[in-house]
């Protein structure tokens, strides 16, 4: 393993800003030589994502030390890009609140976060595969899933290599234009987003699940030599399979069904109570049969906000 400095920037007063990557490369020319870049923590709330990436670094390091032939490709893991954000609970770049993950491919003569994106992208482009670990930007608890953006360079079938329950295959939207995942695909890297976890929290179960998913992916593409249990036979779903269920009223939200539940049309999903007098304002029911993929996570809910997301197959 080599620890590589990828980005460096001086600060006005605090410590210098640094982004490090951890590189694992086979020395055997007969190996696959496939290359995978895994980037995490582009925003400072992605604690679970950083932790999974760091656990992956540790796993690869320990296994490589025990067996030098374990690594059969070229793997770069970047656990924390926005380290300044992590260290002060800020999602975005702390000074100007810009989103590093909206600045790719970056610009070396541009603003600070454009320069950070430029320095990082120089190091992570050109890989055959790219995986971005990220949270949802909104307040939802979701089944971990793979996100693919239609770009003309995605490999939808390889999304199954992670072995997660489903992969969301969606159209490009304008806000994707500056994301790492999309720009990877523009530069001909087959890219995926792994979306999981809640903001500013780490859960032991999902850490293990996602770590397994990454190891499974690395094994399937030939970057490591290992045995691992098969995961789910991933369902690739498009927007047509997704049902959004809003809360008609604002108040205190009580989810009844947890994510991962299979429910039938008419099942009770959740309730909304008046925040002040405690009365029941609304019961939310499943409008279709299907799998509960996400529910609103924060106790207070705004009117018309999506309370549940479900997918239906067939």
């Amino acid at each position: 393993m080599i620890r590589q400095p990828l980005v460096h920037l001086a600060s006005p007063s605090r410590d210098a800003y640094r982004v490090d990557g951890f590189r694992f490369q086979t020395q055997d020319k007969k190996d696959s030589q496939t290359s995978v870049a895994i980037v995490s923590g582009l925003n400072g709330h992605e604690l679970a994502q950083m932790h999974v990436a760091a656990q992956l670094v540790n796993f690869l390091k320990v296994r490589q030390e025990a067996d030098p032939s374990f690594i059969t490709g070229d793997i770069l893991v970047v656990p924390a890009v926005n380290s300044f954000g992590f260290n002060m609970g800020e999602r975005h770049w702390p000074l100007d609140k810009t989103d590093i993950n909206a600045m790719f491919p970056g610009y070396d003569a541009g603003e600070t976060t454009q320069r950070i994106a430029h320095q990082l992208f120089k190091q992570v482009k050109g890989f055959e595969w790219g995986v971005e670990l990220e949270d949802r930007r909104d307040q939802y608890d979701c089944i971990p899933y793979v996100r693919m953006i239609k770009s003309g360079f995605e490999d939808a079938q390889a999304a199954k290599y992670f072995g997660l329950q489903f992969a969301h295959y969606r159209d490009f939207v304008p806000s994707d234009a500056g994301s790492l995942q999309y720009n990877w695909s523009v530069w001909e890297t087959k890219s995926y987003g792994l979306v999981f976890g809640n903001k500013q929290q780490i859960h032991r179960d999902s850490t293990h699940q996602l770590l397994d998913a990454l190891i499974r992916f690395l094994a399937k593409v030939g970057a490591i030599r290992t045995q691992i249990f098969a995961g789910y036979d991933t369902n690739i779903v498009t927007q047509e399979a997704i049902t959004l269920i809003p809360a008609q009223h604002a108040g205190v939200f009580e989810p009844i069904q947890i994510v991962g539940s299979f429910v039938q049309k008419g099942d009770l999903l959740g309730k909304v109570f008046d925040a002040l007098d405690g009365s029941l304002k609304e019961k939310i029911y499943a409008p279709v049969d299907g799998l509960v993929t996400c529910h609103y996570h924060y106790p207070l809910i705004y009117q018309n906000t999506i309370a549940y997301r479900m997918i239906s197959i067939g």
Partner: protein
Amino acid sequence: MLETLVSIELPVGEHYYLKRHRFTPVDVSADNGKRISIISGTHGDELEGIYVISLLAEWLKANPSLITGTIDLYPSLNSLGIDSITRTVPFYQTDLNRIFPGTAKDTFPNQIAAGIVEAIQGSDIAIDIHASNIFLRELPQVRIASTYRDSLVPLAKQLNMDFIWVHDAITVLEATLAHSLNQLGTHTLVVEYGVGMRLTPTYGEQLLDGLFNLMAEQGILAIAPRSVRVPFYSDQGEVYYVNSPAAGLFVPAMDHCQMVVKDQLIGHIHDPYGVESPVPCYTPGAGVLFTLREYPIVYEGSLLARIFDDQKGVCV
């Protein structure tokens, strides 16, 4: 007439309201059928537009007989942000001007965005007033995506601004209010001036004159057109960007909106500990300094200034 167009229930005993103040002709037969929407407060830290809209509302209340079209005023789109010094939509930390056209059944910011588009669409003209951010002070200017150059530049020239900046169409800007409205057929101009969290009354009064002129030219007010400035125009020159070469404290050596020559000192970047000597920054070209950094702390890359190389600019 003050109207409530969107009402969204908040969790604890409050509503978000999208309100507009609508002015219509007293004499219905004088109505030329045109409708203009004047908008501010998409970003909660931008206050300049609120001042202009309040001045305009006062004038319209005092001169109802001069109104010959429909004038809709929307001073405070992101009202929770404005009342809490928050640029984004509070709680969601979402930039409202990056999620248009929004969707009615989704997150709170998306509902606001969808309500705004629903309210404004159908207007002939919209003026979306912005006030930079807390970092940069801007000369009064109109920004136009090159896609809409032909239809918008003639209107922009009526607005009494100092600079018309036609920029490339950038994909991420497709999620702005201006793009959504222009796509729906409302000629929408983005006005930018001043600095975040502050008021620059002289600039506000300059825009107010421009709004009177535009509405006179469009037949929405029965007044004589005002005499307006001849703006400099980005197609007739080049915009230079000056980004900080170092981290530290930026101390300007020149005033905003100054005419500059090449290699003139803009300011220094000071090392807070004084270990390194101050780093001087110089102008890369001659012209009008139309953007100047207001907030002193900088990293490498922080924007310090923008200069337009045309020599015909007029400053307040």
